[in-house]
């Protein structure tokens, strides 16, 4: 694999990262002086990046070698370790740049309205710009270290934004939780990079991918698993999924941009980008597929039992990213399918999150779907746009999901033997469950009797600055899938390899029919159950629902297996540190202090005593010289 050096307009691609970064710096440094116009600067910078991104994209289309590299300066040089500060603009990073800046612009615009009454709006936009810059660096870096920089940058921005309302304990805790769980993943990524350096001596993408074939299977497996750990952490996949739903404590635009459309898909990007590593080891692929399948089912099941509009969407995100992991795990042509689903998901999930935000905006920040109902009458635009997102995620023809999710299910059935039934079945079951809980969400929110409490006199539609992005995203939700289903895989061929027709245990047509049927059944069931509304409180339920409400006990598991022993370990360490280490140190300190106090008494302040110490010193020095060198006095 050979990257062409960037020439002409593309040599300015660093501007993509620099513009939002500069905007963030301006907003943070100017402080309150920027309060009046800061948010518009934030929007403008991302929009500028989008325009630039489009320009580069069309430039790239005109080239034959569509992998363009811009090496800017030697960033680290220690011994044989050389890390360039370099950017790579190729088909894969190109579509990510467009997704991030495109959807990002819309969400920025939306946030202008959403955050209007928040005193920290400028700070919010500063962090938001910081996030965009870091995310762009993540997808544009031409080596793993650059990627890691972006990776940590988005982690930081995500932490800052989740706990943006840090006066709320829940938000502060959620921020910490996200940060900690991400650390686990980050450690994996970091160790993977170390292994790369140790075995290959480089972290440049092209060199790593060229030489990965020469490595032993064990090392590739280790490297892949560690990368997967990183990816799972960032993307909220099993076993590091618990932080993502909690991250909904942040402002809704944050949930839409970071925790639905872009950042959480970084894991998918990482695996897609590292496809030569994963393709090199079938075991690795099986692990990825299993993680994807498990997570997608888990997300669906928990999503069915949640009553908070944003949490349901969050679990749905977990589940949809599970589909993407399934895709990248399947390998071969499915890499591109995962990316298509990622892009389509970016649109419709952002759309639905913003819709949820719009609902909350009109409902005094109420988030409990049991307290909604019949909102379709009051918020027409929100209702219609949300409906497009809902239909898109269901995967009904001709909405996006049909073109993006369906092929993944087909690809899962294309595996060999019984695993086809296992993973395909999981994907199919997931589709039905998705239809069920998304319909539940949709019906309870927009239809049925109104169940909101008295203080909300009449729900209202959001201002145009919020609805216009909604409408644009809705158009994307309807159209994106169809438009991208064939063009994007083709476009991605240089990076992810050629498309091949999947031939599985069931034919394509059969599967399409099956999937549609499952979806319709799920949706119909939900419609029938919740058409009349639901109880305003949580009712006692059977073990399955209880388990789902408790996130399938994963939090309890984490607590029992990691948190409690961690606390005990910490206590033990504190004890050890306090008694043994500090004790030793204190003893030493006391000895030094005592010695100091004693020595101090020699400092009497009298010249004669000082002179004596000089004389004694001179005597000793002379004696030592004569004794050591002349052998006298010995």
């Amino acid at each position, binding site marked *: 694999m050979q990257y062409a050096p960037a020439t002409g307009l593309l040599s300015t691609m660093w501007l993509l990262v620099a513009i939002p970064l500069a905007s963030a710096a301006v907003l943070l440094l100017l402080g309150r002086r920027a309060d009046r116009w800061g948010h518009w600067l934030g929007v403008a910078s991302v929009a500028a990046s989008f325009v630039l991104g489009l320009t580069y994209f069309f430039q790239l289309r005109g080239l034959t070698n569509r992998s363009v590299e811009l090496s800017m300066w030697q960033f680290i040089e220690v011994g044989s370790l050389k890390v360039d500060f370099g950017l790579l603009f190729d088909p894969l990073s190109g579509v990510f740049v467009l997704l991030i800046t495109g959807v990002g612009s819309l969400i920025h615009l939306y946030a202008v309205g959403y955050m209007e009454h928040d005193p920290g709006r400028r700070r919010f936009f500063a962090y938001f710009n910081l996030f965009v810059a870091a995310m762009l660096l993540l997808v544009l870096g031409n080596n793993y270290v650059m990627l890691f920089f972006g990776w940590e940058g988005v982690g930081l921005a995500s932490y800052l934004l989740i706990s943006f309302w840090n006066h709320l304990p829940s938000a502060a805790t959620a921020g910490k939780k996200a940060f900690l769980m991400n650390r686990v993943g980050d450690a994996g990524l970091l160790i993977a990079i170390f292994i790369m350096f140790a075995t290959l001596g480089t972290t440049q993408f092209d060199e790593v991918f060229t030489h990965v074939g020469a490595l032993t299977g064990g090392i590739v497996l280790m490297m892949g698993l560690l990368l997967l750990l990183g990816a799972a952490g960032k993307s909220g996949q099993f076993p590091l999924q618990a932080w993502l739903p909690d991250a909904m404590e942040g402002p809704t635009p944050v949930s839409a941009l970071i925790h639905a459309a872009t950042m959480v898909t970084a894991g998918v990007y990482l695996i897609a980008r590292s496809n030569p590593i994963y393709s090199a080891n079938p075991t690795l692929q099986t692990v990825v597929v299993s993680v994807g399948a498990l997570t997608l089912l888990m997300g669906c099941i928990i999503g069915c039992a949640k009553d908070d509009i944003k949490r349901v969407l969050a679990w749905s995100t977990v589940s949809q990213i599970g589909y993407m992991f399934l895709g990248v795990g399947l390998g071969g042509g499915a890499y591109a399918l995962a990316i298509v689903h990622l892009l389509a998901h970016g649109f419709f999930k952002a759309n639905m999150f913003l819709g949820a935000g719009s609902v909350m905006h009109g409902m005094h920040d109420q988030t409990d779907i049991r307290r909604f109902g019949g909102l379709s009458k009051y918020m027409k635009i929100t209702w219609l746009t949300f409906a497009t997102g809902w239909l898109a995620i269901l995967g009904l023809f001709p909405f996006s999901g049909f073109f993006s999710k369906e092929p993944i299910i087909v690809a899962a059935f294309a595996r060999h033997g019984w695993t086809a039934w296992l993973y395909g079945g999981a994907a199919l079951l997931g589709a039905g469950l998705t239809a069920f809980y998304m319909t539940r969400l949709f019906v309870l929110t927009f239809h049925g009797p109104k169940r909101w409490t008295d203080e909300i006199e009449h729900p209202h539609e959001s201002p145009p600055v919020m609805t216009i992005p909604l409408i644009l995203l809705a158009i994307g939700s309807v159209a994106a899938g169809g438009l991208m289903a064939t063009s994007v895989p083709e476009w991605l061929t240089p990076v992810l390899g050629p498309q091949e027709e999947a031939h599985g245990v069931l034919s394509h047509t059969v599967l399409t029919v099956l999937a549609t049927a499952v979806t319709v059944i799920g949706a119909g069931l939900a419609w029938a159950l919740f058409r009349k509304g639901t109880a305003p409180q949580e009712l006692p339920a059977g073990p399955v629902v209880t388990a789902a409400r408790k996130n399938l006990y994963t939090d309890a598991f984490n607590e029992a297996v990691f948190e409690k022993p961690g606390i005990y370990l910490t206590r033990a360490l504190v004890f050890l540190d306090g008694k043994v280490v500090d004790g030793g140190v204190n003893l030493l300190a006391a000895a030094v202090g005592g010695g100091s106090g004693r020595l101090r008494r020699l400092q009497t302040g009298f010249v004669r005593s000082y002179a004596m110490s000089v004389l004694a*010193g*001179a005597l000793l020095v002379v004696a030592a010289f004569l004794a050591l060198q002349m052998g006298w006095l010995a």
Partner: protein
Amino acid sequence: MTEIGLPPINYGAITPMLILFGASCVGVFVEAFVPKAQRHLVQLVLSLGAITAALVTVVWQADTRTVTAGGAIAIDGPTLFLQGAILVLGVVSILLIGERSLERGGPFVAQAAIVVGSDADRNQTVRQPGATDIYPLSLFALTGMLLFVAANDLLTMFIGLEVLSLPLYLMCALARRRRLLSQEAALKYFMLGAYASAFFLFGLALVYGFTAGTPSGSGDNGGGVDFATIAAAVRNSEVSPALLYAGIALIAVGLLFKAAAAPFHVWTPDVYQGAPTPVTGFMAACTKVAAFGALLRVLHVAFGGASWAYTPVLGAVAALTMLVGAVLAVTQTDIKRLLAYSSVANAGYLLVGALAVNKQGLASTMFYLVAYGFTVLAGFAVVTLVRDADGEATHLSRWAGLGRRSPLFAGVFTFILLAFAGIPVTSGFTSKFAVFGAASGAGHTWLVVVGVLSSMILAFPYLRVVVMMWLSEPGESTPSVLVPGGLTAAALTIGVAATLVLGVAPESLLDLTNRAAEFVP
């Protein structure tokens, strides 16, 4: 009867000294003839101008490598580098000395002869502008320092030592506040300095005896005290080496006294505490450079051939110095005394570098001297700012809560203390790293171990001050931090900037020291 002719003198090479000497004489005349009101400004401009001119000539002479004035003066890389360092640090010191906005009339007493505590004394403390004799005295001291590092024979070195010491003794006695303490400090410094000079002279005589029979520069067999003759005698002399060893020991005592190495450091805390703070800074920065400059020349050039002989003994002195300085700093309650002990410990680190008798050791020690000089001047500059009605508030308990009162200066001082402690990103780290690197390169690992150990101990008192400044509530007696006048601000800025720059990007200075690190034979 032979004709006596003046030996050839390269006047270009000794211009810096001549400029300073001339300027100090002019300064004496200024004292006599210029009206009192204008003296301060004239003297300040004269001093700064003279030092700058001397610095320019040092730079102009940068490529000179010569031994001149009948073999008494060696102008070579280390000489020029150290002279430059002394002059730059001298400028900063003069800035501190010249500050008059912190206190009416500046930090110096108007008439040192007035009896302490008398009515006239009270009157002059609050009203009269300080004596400007301090400027010619500083210039004399700087002249002596330039000579001290350039001296190529022991006798000239001794004269240089006296020329630099005598003005310092006087300068110590001129504090405006706490005059008894200041006079006591001066007297102690004078008496002990004279005492140490006697050791130096005794050593000189013994070494002269050792060179008997070695052909000297003038051609006879009478020996001599110039370094070339001594080096030749060290290589090949028929006289018993006992004379040499006792001589090295006694000369080392004289030089180590000036450098404040244990157990010859005893004067340091008292003198540092009693002297006016700008003078303390001057001593801590410039005198240290001069003392170690001379020590380096003696150890490398004159006794370089016997380095195996003096390394164990002087190494023990270095270890003792580091430990004593660090351990005693722990219990100090006065910031100036604390800095004094810190300077003792630093003398130990410098000695570790000086004992690595090779190019790397020389270069790293010179780097350390410059880096430490800037930091310590900045440190004492901050000390001059923390004041109450009675002058500087130097007791540590008074510094509690200073971070709340004046976060900027507490921050600056914290940075300086971290530099002393050798935290990365400060010059303290790079310089310690360089010195310890040179020492371990020369095989003195045990000294490095002791050095690191003592740095750890020493970090405690520094951090204690930091903790005190930031984590205590300011009490009623917490003094205010004055906004520095232009001169102190300039000195402080230069010191802190140098500390930071030498910590972040030390390459250029390291290069310079490496290029300068070669003595002429």
